[in-house]
């Protein structure tokens, strides 16, 4: 009951945020030099006055601003995000077509980084001061500091070109004609390198965070209580230290989850992964505004949704949250 009210409240706030973003989108296009009709005409590849007037009429650009805004918002409310002249397709279709690939990549990277980061961080904390701790911390620092695209390029050279273990680029083998299980395996092979590259960076962050958090919790009073009960160190670490130490990692993971949709431009570009990131990058290069703004809006919606999911998870793992909020 409490949870339901909380979710409804947060959804209400989310709608307000999305509304604000849609309004911002609307004015962004109008803040660009020239009027939207010229922009669209440019996209469509024609520029004579008659066509411009036609466009203005078709999109209601000759009407007052508030009417335009209203029309624009009603379109957005029905998920009509506009039309891309370059691609000759509705923006929403373009995005939906790319969304699964992106979610697969970022979701896998997210999962890898979270599991690996938490495990490595916990391990390092258990062996603090020993060589295995130093090794994990140093590696984490290296991966944190190295630019993502460089790791991507290097792994392509080593694992694909030199060793030939994994496919170099793309989502699946072009013209492979695989179906069912074979197709899934083929996609997974293509997924490994980009997902790991993207995941390593966050693995490093989670590992460092988990380690610091474990060490802090290890000094807590209730851990002393657990020792006084005569529990074994393994149980104390798992049940008392790790469970409490993971809370800040959950917070951070929630922030990262919000970027799942838009945050993989570099990786997608280097690995020629047909996702939203590349769609956005191409749209930027081609000044395809309606696509850009559509991606912008959908990413924002994802951030709102993932934040909500994180908050719900947080309320489940930490019983104190529900009481104070």
């Amino acid at each position: 009951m409490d949870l339901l009210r909380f979710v409804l409240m947060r959804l209400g706030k989310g709608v307000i945020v999305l509304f604000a973003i849609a309004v911002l989108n609307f004015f962004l296009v109008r803040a660009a030099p020239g009027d939207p009709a010229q922009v669209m005409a440019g996209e469509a590849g024609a520029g004579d006055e008659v066509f411009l007037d036609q466009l203005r009429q078709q999109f209601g650009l000759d009407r007052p601003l508030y009417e335009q805004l209203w029309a624009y918002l009603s379109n957005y409310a029905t998920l009509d995000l506009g039309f891309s002249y370059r691609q000759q397709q509705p923006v929403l279709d373009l995005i939906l077509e790319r969304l699964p690939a992106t979610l697969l990549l970022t979701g896998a990277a997210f999962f890898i980084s979270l599991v690996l980061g938490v495990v490595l961080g916990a391990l390092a904390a258990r062996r603090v001061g020993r060589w295995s701790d130093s090794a994990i911390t140093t590696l984490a620092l290296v991966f944190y500091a190295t630019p993502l695209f460089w790791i991507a390029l290097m792994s392509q050279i080593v694992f694909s070109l030199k060793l030939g273990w994994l496919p170099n680029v793309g989502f699946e083998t072009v013209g492979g004609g695989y179906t069912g299980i074979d197709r899934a395996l083929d996609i997974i092979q293509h997924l490994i390198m980009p997902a790991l590259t993207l995941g390593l960076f966050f693995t490093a962050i989670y590992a460092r965070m988990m380690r610091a958090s474990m060490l802090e919790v290890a000094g807590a009073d209730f851990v002393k209580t657990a020792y006084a009960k005569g529990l074994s160190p393994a149980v104390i670490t798992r049940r008392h230290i790790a469970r409490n130490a993971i809370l800040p990692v959950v917070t951070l993971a929630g922030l990262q989850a919000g970027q799942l949709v838009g945050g993989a431009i570099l990786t997608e570009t280097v690995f020629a992964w047909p996702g939203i990131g590349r769609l956005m990058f191409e749209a930027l290069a081609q000044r395809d505004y309606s696509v850009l703004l559509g991606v912008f809006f959908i990413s924002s919606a994802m951030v709102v949704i993932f934040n909500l999911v994180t908050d719900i998870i947080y309320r489940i793992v930490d019983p104190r949250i529900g009481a104070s909020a």
Partner: protein
Amino acid sequence: MTERVLHVEGLSLSLPNAADRRFALKDASFQIGAGETVCVVGESGSGKSMTAHAVMGLLPPAVKVAAGSIRLAGRELLGLDERDMRRLRGCDIGMIFQEPMTSLNPLMRIGDQIGEMFEAHGALHPAARNKRALELIEEVGLPDPAHIVRVYPHQLSGGQRQRVMIAMALALEPKLLIADEPTTALDVTTQAQILRLIDRLRSEHGTAVLFITHDFGVVAEIADRIVVLQNGEICETGKTGDVLRTPSHDYTKRLIAAVPSLTPPEPRRLATATPALKIDGLSKTYRSGGFFAKGREVAAVDNVSFEILPGETLGLVGESGSGKSTVGRCCLRLIEPDGGMIRLETVEIQGMTQRMLRAHRSRIQMIFQDPYASLNPRRSVGRIIAEGPVAQGVDRSTAMLQARELLDLVGLAPAAADRYPHEFSGGQRQRIGIARALALNPKVLVADEAVSALDVSVQAQILDLIREIQNRLQVAVLFITHDLRVAAQICDRIAVMQRGRIVEMAATAELFANPAHDYTQMLLAAVPGREAFAHTHETETNHVT
């Protein structure tokens, strides 16, 4: 002689080389029989907690056992391997800690945390564990056990959590219960209940109790015998009555003399004058909840009125959550009150903007509870003290000169101005805090639990200092405390707060002789060791009236 449960003999604990002394505990010997309570008393750093942890086999890695033996029911504990020691912990030795608020895992239900005790030692079937947990909760006097097993620690009060800790420690009927300052963080009335509970369980189960405390009132209340520790060495042991009545060692005598008496000194005569601080109808309500949610309202301060004359000390006493600290902060508008008048001498400050208020800030200053957290660790003591005057427009070098004079006034060497807070002890830091407050030459000082974090001997010195400064500078003091002994000694008048309201306000002697309100009577009755420390204040030499 009863059977010895715990026998500590010639125990020495060595500290790492960098420490300020070589041994945390040196050549300590004592024993506890079944059903007996032994209190280890000492000031902070005396090694009393180390003693408890040594028995548990939970010493910090840097501290090593250098010599001696610890025998539990005849079995030598030193030299046992970790696995055997783990079997003893919880099963033969139960332990409860000082901080009930943080001693329970915040993410686990109470029932599961008690159940772990059985699980760790393979006792009982899982089904029987839950039943036993319910019985234990019932035994420590918590209401509705079926509900308690399902709640999380944050849903319980400090006293209730300490009861859970006790239930857990006694779950497997250990031979020895170690209680490390178990009531220090609790209110007096709760403290009295917990002490009674421990004592009842001890007599019912014949448990030996090793009770660590710094509070002689608690000692008088619960101990059969006392072990007094000073700098890691036992300086006196004996039956409680004997040691408290006729202490033989100088250190014990000094400690006992430093315990403030509940009998107030002769009242002082104060010249009638304009009140330095007058509060009228002050109120503050906290609302929880946000944007959409309908919040809960708590009246932290409810229509509070009082005035303090120059040179007078008004005590504000009450338990945690009574709103006394909120009143103190509202007086300085560190918390914004919802309503009421705050008059400093002739100036009413309640309606002022923060900018206007700044000019009057020097009239009222605050001394905080925690001498460790209330001084900026990155600034020299001189700059900490001079900061206020500089902000009020005093020239920097003049302010630094003043800071040195103030350090002299509070009993520190003027050279201390160039040093940093971490180089000082708790008592010295509190002196710095007082110097900082005095730097602006205030007419009113708000002391919020200013001596609560200090050892009794240091506490006595700081109280003397506050009194002496008050006599010299004629400042009015609002003295907020939960400790009725301290209040009895330093306050001219006392206001008792309960749930945001002042329920009784009277001259100190009057209040202690004839408490009118039920709540005041209850507070007074709960003060530990009231009979044992009925001595008057003749032991204090520099007491000014």
